């Protein structure tokens, strides 16, 4: 893999090819940060901060075994740190709007938007580990082993957490739908 070769350059840490690293990893880091923050500008800031960290700790780069996991972990922690400063109501709604099908009628689009918002809200209310596993599993580039390495869990634990997260999310959404229908019937 090219980035790993770029990172594990001989012995001179100063010879790390940062432009190559940025080119290879910026998209995945952006997706990781965006899944937490749901804001494009904030996610870009996180990616930039992650590469600044790389620059500052480039002396230790040759000792890094899996550079992608290491970078994703940095970006993940930075995004979580930044996420603590943002309230859920301050998060960008443009992501939910972008998922709504534009070809349907306005009332159907509104209902779909509300459903997506409900899913995002329930995802925020999931337990921390389950939410982390669910969000990281949404990123294609990351395997279960890599997610386990990022979160410091075993692979089986990650699989169990993912299954539990989806189950819990399904149940909560069903309950929410029932509640909504009851209110509408009244």
């Amino acid at each position: 893999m090219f980035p790993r070769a770029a990172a594990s350059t001989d012995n001179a840490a100063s010879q790390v090819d940062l432009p190559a690293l940025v080119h290879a990893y910026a998209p995945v880091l952006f997706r990781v940060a965006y899944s937490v923050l749901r804001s494009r500008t904030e996610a870009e800031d996180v990616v930039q901060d992650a590469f600044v960290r790389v620059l500052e700790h480039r002396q230790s780069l040759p000792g890094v075994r899996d550079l992608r996991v290491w970078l994703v972990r940095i970006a993940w922690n930075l995004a979580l740190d930044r996420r603590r400063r943002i309230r859920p109501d301050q998060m960008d709604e443009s992501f939910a709007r972008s998922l709504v099908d534009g070809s349907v009628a306005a009332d159907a689009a509104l209902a779909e938007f509300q459903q997506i918002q409900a899913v995002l809200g329930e995802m925020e209310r999931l337990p921390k580990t389950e939410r982390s596993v669910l969000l990281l599993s949404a990123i294609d580039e990351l395997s279960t082993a890599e997610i386990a390495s990022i979160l410091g869990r075993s692979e089986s634990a990650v699989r169990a957490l993912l299954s539990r997260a989806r189950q819990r999310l399904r149940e909560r959404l069903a309950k929410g739908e029932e509640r909504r229908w009851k209110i509408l019937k009244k």
Partner: protein
Amino acid sequence: MEDPEEVVDTVLSGLRAVAPPVGMEARIQLALQSHRADQAPDSPFRFRLRRPALLGGFGGVLVVAAWCVAALCLFVLAGRRGAAKHPAEHPAAGHPAEQAVTSTPASISTPESQSPFVTPGAGAVHPRAVRLVSSRPSRGAAVAAADAGPAASLVSFPAPPMPLTEQERLLLVLAHRRGQARLAGIDAQKQEARETEQFQEFFKPEPSIVVNDTPPAAVDTATATTTTPSK
């Protein structure tokens, strides 16, 4: 209505498909370059900070000298501020009345002179000046008192007088308008004679009123003679 599972999949696939903004990589490259330039070793300040061994020689002397100069400046500035805040500690710069008071320390130590109100004995000195000087003993006096030993430490110093209120200040202004000139012109005997004369004037019986002991028949004739019609 869609199945919740489908909505969850839609959301997750949306997160998966998010594309980074255009030009993000270029912006990150620029930021990294600027960060690297900040960390460049050719910056003289950073060079010195990264090599503290150099500070042990000439750099250390410079730092110590800079600290000494800063401390000296602070000391001088603090001294000037203190002098500006307490002009009463410098008799040459004060009011003439204050100079007079400081030249007679015996009168300062008396309790009457520390009162904000004027007593007849201290009429020549402005009470404000007395208060200012007496409330701030000089440093020399304090050192002398400390050197005098335990006997001097037993002497109790009264608390400094409270600042005058607005009413007290107005009262002082009223009481001291031309006060010294008036006091100089007072003669006790003349004052007494004037008061006696005013008393006599006030209680002197009017000449037109006559005490009448005659019978009522004669009253008419008496009133007819005494009262003169004004119109």
